[in-house]
């Protein structure tokens, strides 16, 4: 059985087409970078099973999630993953704590409701939001909503965690704490794929995948990509700071 993620992605969303390959070892963090409209979010949606593959395959730790050629396609709920969308998408009718506990009901079967709730409280505490547990999403700031969305995803301790610009709405003071939360609740072997525009996030990843127009234009460590000369925006993002 091959461990890690092997994804050969071909998918269409309207007129946009994605054709990209992503590989990750067990426990790796992959940063996906690229200009707006390059297909970063589509890549996450394909991995999550929201957008179907038209060709290729997704295999995680030996389990085939999607392989159109063999008629295999797991639904999102059948995949051991969690997603943090760019716009948080907290369920508006649920309180903060119910949002965080939502996935535990399905991903932590066998544990009592009380245990699930305690687990959700711990995740909320780790995100520094325990005092907001009973609030509704509309009573939170944009940054707080994003932090709850991260807590909701990481608490389920999935094998694959997909994060779409998770820190974009979070102020500098809370970024450090949130990164700490993501790390603290990370189970051994979890693969993280992070779409980011942030240099720091990319620099700390094991590998960076650069996308343009739905195609991978470069892949390697942040240091390697910062040294290359062909892609200006990538060099500006990852090259030595002036």
């Amino acid at each position, binding site marked *: 059985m091959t461990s890690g993620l092997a994804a050969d992605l071909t998918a269409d969303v309207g007129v946009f087409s994605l054709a990209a390959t992503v590989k990750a070892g067990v426990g790796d963090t992959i940063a996906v970078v690229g200009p707006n409209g390059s297909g970063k979010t589509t890549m996450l949606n394909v991995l999550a099973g*929201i957008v179907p593959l038209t060709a290729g395959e997704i295999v995680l730790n030996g389990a085939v999630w999607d392989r159109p050629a063999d008629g295999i396609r797991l639904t999102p709920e059948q995949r051991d993953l969690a997603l943090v969308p760019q716009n948080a998408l907290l369920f508006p009718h649920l309180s903060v704590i119910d949002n965080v506990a939502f996935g535990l009901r*399905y991903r932590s079967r066998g544990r009592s409701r009380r245990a699930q709730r305690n687990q959700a409280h711990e995740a909320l505490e780790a995100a520094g939001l325990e005092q907001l547990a009973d609030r509704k999403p509309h009573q939170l700031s944009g940054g707080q909503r994003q932090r709850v969305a991260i807590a909701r995803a990481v608490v389920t301790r999935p094998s694959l965690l*997909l994060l779409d610009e998770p820190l974009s709405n979070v102020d500098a003071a809370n970024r450090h704490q949130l990164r700490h939360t993501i790390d603290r609740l990370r189970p051994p072997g979890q693969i993280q794929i992070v779409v980011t525009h942030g240099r720091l996030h990319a620099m700390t990843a094991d590998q960076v995948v650069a996308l343009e127009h739905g195609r991978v234009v470069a892949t390697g460590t942040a240091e390697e990509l910062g040294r290359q000369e062909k892609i200006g925006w990538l060099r500006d993002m990852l090259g030595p700071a002036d």
Partner: protein
Amino acid sequence: MAAGVGVLLFAIPVIALLADAPWSTLFTQFTAPETLTAGRVSVIVSLAATALAVLLGVPMAFALANMDFWGKPIVRTIITVPLVLPPVVTGVALTSAFGRRTLFGELTGIGLTSTMAGAVLAAAVVATPFLVLTVEGTLRSTDPGYEQLAATLGAGPLARWWRISLPLARPGVLAGAILAWARALGEFGATITFAGNTEGSTQTLPLEIALALENPDTQDRAVAVSILMLIVSLTVLITLRDRWIPRR
């Protein structure tokens, strides 16, 4: 200018109705035995019709909003046709389908004509399209991302429907139910054609108004009951709208 004329078009009949009201005997008219009986029938029929509209209309709205199936435009047309059909025609159609001398009547041994069940059915048929269209509109304007995200958190189709889609559609269901109830409460044409005008079982308040208006001695009661229906409708509409339907 045109907007002002439009507002007057709606306001003048209400003002005229209030000016015509027998204020000194209003309470007596409200508590007249005929009014109380028709009021009781109206409450039962309109609430039962609303319940039927919710039970049948919500699944139909979900199917129309979320599913692709052959003949969907035809199904939508059939469901919404009572909106444009004269209610009398709906009543005739119901008589043809559920009257005593129909297959339904022969199989069941009872037709629904001249029964309270018939009045409920007539009111439900004309009211349900309002609920279906309102709920479908709400569902279509809801971000599909919520359901997709719930799936990535492990929720299956039924859990997503119960815990995400249905609660998010709640304002639409409530708004649709209120509209359906108001339409059922005011239903006249289909009811009198299909269910008749029997005191105590099918004679609702609108039918009582029409009957009272025919006799010069009871015209005051017709106006009084009209005012009663106006008050009830406005009260429910205003209080429920502000409480349950979020302002955009």
